[in-house]
């Protein structure tokens, strides 16, 4: 059984000491980190800290040094997220902090991706995501993106306040088969329908599948406005996207 002192990285040690209170979980995490090299612990620390510059440079360096990409993912990036998950569950950090950590993980994953494609591993699908015109509420969408990327999707994030033209342009440029739209206000919800309309006008409706979500959106609204699928939350979003990718939309 590994001891806390077996972990070389001081920041990680402090994090475990301070935030992981359940004994079994604590031992599990200590074992996980103790078997990782200090270089991997450093990567994990940058994820926990939400520091995307460090995670970017550390991951790049580790891969250049010849560390396995799987090891970088497991012992570095995912190990970091494991502690983030616990801190979040115990209310030590909240959604904005989690999203910063997810961003740091993405910065690390960016260096893993070329190796994936060189190994013949393709993303399971490409998704365009954005909040609709007039809507600045992006946290639900950001959680969806975190989930999609974690599940192996390539996501093009158009951010907030996305006009129908921006969506069309992105679909044409990236040839993505799935578009995810989110709206949080009853006032901006109609813009989902307008966006779908714009795709019809541009004769592109058959090229893409639309999935929609957001607090005021219901399956009935989704149906009314002509969307292909509705997801209630970030977990469902991944299931829905998998379904849409599998349903034979053009790639």
């Amino acid at each position: 059984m590994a001891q806390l002192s077996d972990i070389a990285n001081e920041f990680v040690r402090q994090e475990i000491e301070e935030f992981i209170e359940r004994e079994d979980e604590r031992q599990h995490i200590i074992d996980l980190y103790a078997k990782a090299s200090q270089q991997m612990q450093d990567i994990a620390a940058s994820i926990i800290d939400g520091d995307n510059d460090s995670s970017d440079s550390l991951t790049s360096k580790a891969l250049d040094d010849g560390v396995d990409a799987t090891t970088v993912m497991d012992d570095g990036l995912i190990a970091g997220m494991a502690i983030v998950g616990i801190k979040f569950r115990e209310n030590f950090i909240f959604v904005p902090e989690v999203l910063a950590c997810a961003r740091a993980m993405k910065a690390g994953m960016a260096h893993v991706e070329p190796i994936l494609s060189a190994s013949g591993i393709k993303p399971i699908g490409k998704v365009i995501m954005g909040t609709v015109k007039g809507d600045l509420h992006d946290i639900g969408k950001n959680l969806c993106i975190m989930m999609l990327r974690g599940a192996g999707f390539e996501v093009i994030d158009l951010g907030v306040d996305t006009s129908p033209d921006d969506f069309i342009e992105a679909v044409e440029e990236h040839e993505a088969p799935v578009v995810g739209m989110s709206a949080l206000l009853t006032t901006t919800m109609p813009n989902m329908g307008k966006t779908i309309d714009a795709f019809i006008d541009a004769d592109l409706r058959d090229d893409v599948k639309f999935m929609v979500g957001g607090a005021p959106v219901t399956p009935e609204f989704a149906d009314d406005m002509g969307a292909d699928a509705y997801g209630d939350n970030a977990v469902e979003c991944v299931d829905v996207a998998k379904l849409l990718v599998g349903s034979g939309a053009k790639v």
Partner: protein
Amino acid sequence: MKKIDQSDYDRSVARLSSLLSDIAVHAQEQSKMRCPYKNRLDQCTAKFGCRNKRKPRAKDQLPWCASDDKLDYRSAWETEPDEYVQVRDTIRKTVSRPCKNSDQPMSQVWYDRQHCPGQTGKTIFDHADDLRVRVPSSCGRSGHCHECVVEIKRGMEALSPPSEVENFLHGQYRLACQACVEKSDVDVEFSLLLRTPKILTAQDHGVIELDPVVTRRGDDVYYHDDQIDTYRGHIYGMAVDVGTTTIVAELVDLETGQSAYLSSFENPQRFGGSDVMRRISYDAGEFQGELHKVLINTLNGEIRQMCDKLSISRHEIYEFVVVGNSTMREMFFNHDVQSIGQMPYKSQVEEQYLSGQRNTTSLTEPARGLRLWANRRAQVFGAPIIASHVGGDVAAGLLAMDMARQTEVVMFVDVGTNSEVVIGHKDRLIAASCPAGPAFEGGLVRFGMPGCDGAIESVRYRDGRFICQTIGQTEPRGICGSGLIDLLAELRRHDLMTPKGVFADKAKHFDIIPEHGITFSRNDASELAQAKAANYCGQIILMRKFGIRPDQVAKLYLAGGFANYVDSVRAVEIGFIAPVSPDRIVKIGNAAAQGALQMLLSKHARQSIERLVRKIEHVELETTADFFEVFVEGCQFKPMHFPSQPRHQEPK
């Protein structure tokens, strides 16, 4: 560059996905209570406007968030929600598909800036549920507790006419459980009454000998004789009085005994009912554990705020002392409370104590297990209970009064929805709990209300009219406990009411403040008579049992709730408290919080309370042979009657 094996990669992705799923599920759950844009420093990360946003506390900081996590934060986001119908229409216009549903107009029910579709046949309470707005209630929505009063800001015409039980309300006020949406073409908007009770807190700590459990020895911190931490600059402890209605938490420096922060707030469990029996049955249902959670979460929120304001770390808090009635204490410790709700009303801890499985009813558990925001090694001490419903709060109150050293016979009356009475001296003590109900606390009486702004707190009758004083000097909205006692006494003094509650000249009601429509009916008098009778029974049966008359009581200590504001002469006149002369009546404020503090600061106090509770004999009032006769006698508005002795004369 080494290639990645597909199956290795799939395994990693599966692990990551499961981690992230847990995060997403927790995020969704949490977003019901806490705005997701609020970071761990309670700062706002939103890029849009919100009414809860406040100026950054320092340069280069994000704005901070003023929301209290209690109600749906979404209403604060600055948006201009269109009406549902309009939105639906716009969608239909923009979409070429044919509509499936009929074009029936749909009205909305609004609360603040949130709304949901109005459904005919459903009450405002049901709609509030849809909107996740917590409306207080303790009568199972039957219209009797009067807690779910809402103000209808518009759309009264869409609601069912007021029912019989709502006749105490006028103007735009309704009971949420009674008002049904009847028309589907008019929007309804409601709001809750904001009630911030006058909260009683510890008055004076007196001198307590410093002898805490957590001490500093050199550079180390010790809990008893265990080294638990290295010294971080302070050693704090917290005394918590968990009342059914109000919670008082005091942070104390255990090295100096100085109070560092005092906080009091409403018990957040109100949505589970306003008395302990309702909460016990709530905790039996599908939301078991919810009441414990909300209690700890709210306390953690207070602790965070204290830490923030005092610039201290949670790691410097090493101990908690918790007092409360049996139900509140067990809920705090997340124990099953069901056995307290049924005969013989004993908690599992008490049953274990009585069967010899444990040698005290006090509890000591790690704070970590309760998820309290404190040092990892912090401990929580739950004060021992007396018996059944008579809990550690009463014991703490007795500790604060130094009951262990009282040589004369004293009486302790803690007035509340559940009143407690203790009589005795250092060698013999008896205690009882009397379920008085909420009539003096705002329930059951037509214009009754808790002691908050707008409540009439004192009443005098002069020259044919009632002269009233209102808390906060605002427009009177109702009458609180001390006002009701005054009113009853004035009616008796001026022969406007018989002891049996019959009004002079066969009047059905009195206009207390005609211009505000505040009245007092015979029915109100009868509700108060029964609540008073419970207090009466407790005091008189215990005095009898102890073999003592009021004139032999050296001191009558009045604690809790509105007791501090009561006119004791008038309270004696109507038989609310025993006829003890006013100079021997002592109002002691929140004695329970004071006792908790003593236990926090002194090991000796903890030993004293253990000895004290063992000494107390618990009396089950209902099992007294002539309980019913005593109760009926107690319903009369006159000084307590002691047959063995000539009636005690009150000084005028």
